[in-house]
């Protein structure tokens, strides 16, 4: 259709020219006046659009689209940078809550790799034939922290910190969508303070929004990932306390390669890179534990 539109535009020029002496400067000038500006623009624009589309199509196989849980958003940027420097492949990153990305994948979202913040949803994808069997592995084990812009009181008593009367709002990632939020709820239940602080809890879409609620001063405390904080410059780092891992089930973050990646070299190369010592060193530097499942 695009090609035929271009031809129609060209045809108009041809006809105008043929009525006059071909090649004459005067008549070429006239032809340009007769042509509406719209189709002049189109003549230049459509071939350009077409070539961009063709380029995009040829690049497609070299690009891997990766869906990444929000807690890993900063780390994946550094991994992306290193991966693209080391190879000719490109990755395109989509971040969101684990639950949102899962729902998108189940509904046919065009991702090749899914970096979840839990082990449960990648397993479901494998069972549901959305993922390539046997490609699931734990790329990181998340560290939950409680973050504040104000200094935190001394002592290790988390229950006292959360129930403190000066704490008005506590940001928690939505436990139904974000594994860090689910872990936070486990902690609250484990400390047996759910009833005391229920009125203080505000639910964020994902760890990133929980972070933003604290960073903009609207929540006094927030449950976030340690990586969120380690990426901040020292001056903005505020104060945080690591949540002891015996208060919740380990946040095992699994990656899984999706069916659409079978013939995508970039995606397969990225997964290999994610398992490499170089990538593992980056992941460890941002506060994650590593699993030795390889």
């Amino acid at each position, binding site marked *: 259709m695009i090609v035929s539109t271009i031809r129609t535009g060209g045809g108009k020029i041809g006809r105008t020219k043929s009525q006059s002496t071909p090649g004459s400067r005067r008549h070429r000038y006239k032809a340009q006046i007769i042509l509406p500006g719209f189709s002049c623009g189109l003549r230049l624009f459509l071939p350009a659009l077409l070539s961009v589309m063709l380029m995009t199509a040829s690049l497609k196989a070299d690009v891997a689209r990766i869906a990444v849980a929000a807690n890993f958003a900063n780390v994946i940027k550094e991994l992306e940078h290193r991966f693209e420097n080391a190879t000719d492949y490109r990755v395109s990153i989509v971040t969101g*809550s684990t639950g949102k990305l899962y*729902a998108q994948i189940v509904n046919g979202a065009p991702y090749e790799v899914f970096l979840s913040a839990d082990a449960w949803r990648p397993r479901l994808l494998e069972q549901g034939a959305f993922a390539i069997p046997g490609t699931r592995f734990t790329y990181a084990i998340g560290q939950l922290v409680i973050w504040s812009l104000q200094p935190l009181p001394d002592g290790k008593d988390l229950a006292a910190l959360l129930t403190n009367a000066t704490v008005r*709002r506590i940001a928690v990632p939505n436990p*139904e*969508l974000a594994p860090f939020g689910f872990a936070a709820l486990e902690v609250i239940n484990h400390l047996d303070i759910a009833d005391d602080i229920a009125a203080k809890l505000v*639910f964020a*879409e994902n760890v990133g929004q929980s972070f933003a609620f604290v960073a903009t*001063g609207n929540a006094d405390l927030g449950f976030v990932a340690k990586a969120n904080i380690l990426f901040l410059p020292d001056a903005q780092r505020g104060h945080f306390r690591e949540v002891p891992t015996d208060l919740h089930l380990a946040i095992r973050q699994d990656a899984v390669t999706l069916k659409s990646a079978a013939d995508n070299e970039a995606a397969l190369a990225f997964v290999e890179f994610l398992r490499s010592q170089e990538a593992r060193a980056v992941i460890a530097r941002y506060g994650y534990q590593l699993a030795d499942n390889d």
Partner: protein
Amino acid sequence: MDTNWLTMTDLSSVVVTLKLAASATVVLMVISIPLAWWLAVTHSRIKPFVEALTALPLVLPPTVFGFYLLILFNPQFPIGAFWLRMSGDTLAFSFSGILVATVLHSLPFVVQPLQNSFENVGKGEIEAAAVLGAHPLDIFASVTAPLAKRGFLTAAVLGFAHSVGEFGVILMVGGNIPERTRVISIDIYTSVETLDYARAHLLSLGTLIFAFVTLLTLYLINFGRSGRNRAF
């Protein structure tokens, strides 16, 4: 905390939404009637600036509003601090906060029909009243307002309906708190993300029917009459 709060019988988001839309409509009418009246009669040079400011929500992404409101609501800053002193609660994540957000974001939907209907009231009637010695407020109450009553209806209905449909700003400043800031649109969004399609269908269909019936009623009323006061 019960993580199983999203059950089919939990209609708290509907209650929050209706309360929000009703409150927003009242606040919007109180703000918009004098504003629209001023815009309709003024020859001031700042009129285009005020009109542009009022129309901003029509073109700005809700994320721009949401981001700036999060900054303004911060208790460390003057507005947030003032509100905290007055009410003892933060603006973000509170019903008052989403009310402020909704009012700001629905403003043009109320101001513009009112302004149109005020402008459509004939100059002749107003001048006659003025010549007879009526005070401007008296002219408004006994000439303009009765002639522009369809504008009032349109403005109130659109303000209410648009408030029911508010989503993006509330997503950013609301905090998704059941019975306080979780409105229908947020409830649907969360239901879809958690793959609870039954709940998403129930709430979406209800909202769709509500929106259609509301607009149909408005258009039927306008269809039933003709004349110069048509607001849209």
